[in-house]
């Protein structure tokens, strides 16, 4: 986007800000209605209704996040790809963070059958003679 000599950035318009605000209020309402659904009553064997509800709520939050970043933070009107890239990197790095951590916390002991079992392990290190209590070992 070319700027004239004395104009900086994009010009925010009132319609845009108010429109975003109304959309956010409506989506908050949607989120609340979803959360008030009694999933226990709708529950069926072959479908985890509760999980769908949670997913829908978080998706609504995501849409709200997109609206805030696009219209209130002006990402929609950025001439350079730069700020978009910064934002996208945030998203990617956090996704990596949560996925890899989850790959640990949710799969512990899946492959190794001895996990969580007590193994009769005899230390090769001889116990220190008495009076050597001060010889603590750091991590």
């Amino acid at each position, binding site marked *: 986007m070319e700027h004239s000599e004395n104009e900086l950035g994009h010009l925010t318009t009132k319609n845009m800000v108010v429109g975003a605000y109304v959309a956010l209020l409506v989506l908050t309402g949607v989120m609340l209605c979803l959360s008030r659904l009694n999933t226990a009553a709708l529950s069926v064997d072959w479908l985890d209704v509760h999980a769908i509800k949670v997913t829908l709520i978080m998706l609504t939050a995501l849409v709200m996040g997109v609206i805030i970043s696009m219209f209130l933070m002006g990402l929609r009107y950025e001439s350079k790809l730069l700020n978009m890239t910064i934002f996208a990197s945030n998203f990617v790095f956090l996704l*990596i963070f949560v996925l890899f*951590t989850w790959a*640990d916390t*949710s799969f*512990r002991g899946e492959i190794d059958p001895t996990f969580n079992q007590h193994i009769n392990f005899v230390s090769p290190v001889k116990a220190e003679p008495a009076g050597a209590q001060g010889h603590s070992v*750091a991590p």
Partner: protein
Amino acid sequence: MIAHVTNNINYLKAKRGFMSWLVTVDHKRIGVMYLASILCFFILGGSFAFMFRLELWSPLKEFLTPDQYNQFFTLHGVIMVFLVVVPGIPAALGNFIVPLQLGAKDLAFPKLNLTSLYLYWLGAIIALYSLVAGHADQGWTMYAPYSLSRNPAVLWMMIAAFFLGFSSILTGLNFLVTIHNMRAPGMTFFRMPLFLWSMYATAIMQIFATPVLAITLVLLLLENFFGIGIFDPALGGDPILMQHFFWFYSHPAVYIIVVPGFGITSELITAFSKKDIFGYNFVAYSSVAIAIIGFVVWGHHMFVAGQSELADFLFSFLTFFTAIPSAIKVFNWTATLYKGSIELKTPMLYALQFLFNFTIGGLTGIILSILSVDIHLHDTYFVVSHFHYVAMGSTMIAFIGGIHYWWPKMTGKMYNEFWGRAAAILVFVGFNVTFFVQLVMGSQGSPRRYYHYMNEFQIYHQISTIGVIILATGLFMALFNLLASLKFGATAPKNPWGARTLEWEEADSPPVLYNFTKTPVVTHGPYAFDTEKA
């Protein structure tokens, strides 16, 4: 503008008095103050290492108690990581050089830059206070539950690391904005010296990884005070989750440490081979690639910590990829040397050391990333040696080389070349004697961090201790040589090395207050040694 009135006096003389340094927003003065502070902490952290290395001369007590030994290596680790190598090159040399190489008057946010220096000092003072507040013996990694003992020394150390983290974020932010918006006319991204590319990559990691450290430290502090139960196993928390948080920062931090060293090496090797870098784009992009890959490999620090096998496999597999950009760099530097007119000046000796040490450091890293081998080598001296080859043997060596390279620009004085070279050779010998034996010792299974060791390892420990004495001699020789030049050195010419980057061709030694008397216009690449000066 008023600016032009004082813009023909060099920055050291532009204003006088102690206060003029403390409230300065000049990036050059801030860089010099950072350099002085970092070197002081390097000496402090080094003397802790020196003392426990002497203690390890025999498996019995020499002069330190086991508790003191634990404190000393904790302090060595914390000081060297958080106060020396992480801020190191970007804060000291980067602050001074980045605007000069870009052809800018200053960094984009001079006041923020000063703030980051004060945050560094604040963190440093708190870290020093933690020395007297008690016995910090948790190791620099601050793993839970070691760090949950409500030990005041540990708490102060975490607060210190928090402030130092913010200082690092502000530096990175400043560099990214400056490189994007403040380039001189004609300075395209691909005419930037490679030092700037490495600063760019470093800044990405500083901005995206350091906040995770900040929040980890906040959570640890809250865990200490209120027992919020997220990390504390006694309260139902997951201590391995804490390690994930910690290494999500600290693995990129390892690259925050080493990538600036790559940048300096690229400058030194081209300047003293009088040759354009081989494969500019590859060297530039590989810095960024390392920064990105650095975010997906943190789990290799936790192979034996109890994380799931699935995560082990993933992280081991991904870690191999770090070898690709690293190898591209080493091959390209070597190819740059080929048929260059090489001058073995002091900075070049450090650059060659970097090549040698980094190759060893990098290859031992590949060995450690192999899952099955790592289970054997984890927590042995092999690991100690590996990361010292990278952090000390590569980063600090590049740092010292960079200091020698830019010293004439910073101070306007030439140091004694003979003593500079002698010190460089001593450092090389001392460093390798110290750490190469630790590779052997570690591969035989000698565990790290212990006060006692088995008698069969004594010979290795003794060789290592002798090495550290040589290393310390070399480092002090280099330091005295540089300091002596301030008083006895000859006045430095504008461009003593015949380099082609802006800070040498366009700026005086030392530069004027706003760096350049007129805004430079860039017409050639950073290493255009085959074309005449315009």
